[in-house]
């Protein structure tokens, strides 16, 4: 079940790749995680990716760009990406940065996101 993601566990549940991002990741860790997520989507033929950012104190331009890129790559592999648990202060900061996170869907929590992804399956 678990991905080989070093210290960030990636699990696949019912066709959904689920990952909870840790707060202290640096840019290099984020790129590694992105690679591992894409690989897991492909290996599992997943139709969804759920990224839990509830422990992220901040999302800056780098992390924001990574979330957008992740959604794009998963989209090309026919998987839908949903980000859950964004803190209110993070949302306000992203607006100031002018980061709209285009193509990134959000949901309240992982359960809702998995439900949405499963409901969307043909």
């Amino acid at each position, binding site marked *: 079940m678990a991905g080989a993601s070093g210290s960030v566990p990636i699990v696949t549940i019912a066709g959904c790749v689920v990952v909870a991002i840790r707060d202290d990741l*640096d*840019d290099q860790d984020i790129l590694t995680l992105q690679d591992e997520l894409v690989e897991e989507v492909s290996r599992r033929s997943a139709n969804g990716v759920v990224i839990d950012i509830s422990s992220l104190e901040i999302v800056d331009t*780098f992390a924001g*760009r990574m979330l957008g890129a992740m959604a794009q790559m998963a989209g090309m592999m026919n998987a839908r990406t949903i980000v859950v648990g964004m803190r209110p202060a993070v949302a306000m900061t992203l607006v100031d940065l002018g980061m709209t996170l285009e193509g990134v869907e959000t949901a309240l929590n992982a359960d809702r996101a998995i439900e949405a992804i499963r409901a969307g399956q043909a």
Partner: protein
Amino acid sequence: MEDGRTAVTLASAQDVAYAREAAKRAMTEIGASTVRRTKFVTAVSEIARNAVIYGRGGRIVFEIREQGGVRSVVAECSDRGPGIADVAMALTDGYSTGKGLGRGLGGAKRLVDRFEIRSSETTGTVVILESRAR
């Protein structure tokens, strides 16, 4: 932060994470609101990353100040890089000479109470960020 000052050397992506950590600690120490703390830490992350990527590294110093009963954190980030030829241009959203979105500098400016930038070919770039507790 007993003497109210902390310095972080900036040479790698990991150091940018340390700078964020130091910024968070300082804002927590002055009792800043969550939103103010989040905005300041994000601004620090952008400026510190720029120093590493474009400025050949440098350092960032955090200092706690008090004025009129309101405390604030001042971050001064200096690098040894080539400087920014056109600062006004660099502050424009969408302008990037790298792989970025070009939102770091302009975004950082909007996230803090005070933003100053000095840059030259000989001295590198110095960015000052300040946010009050409230």
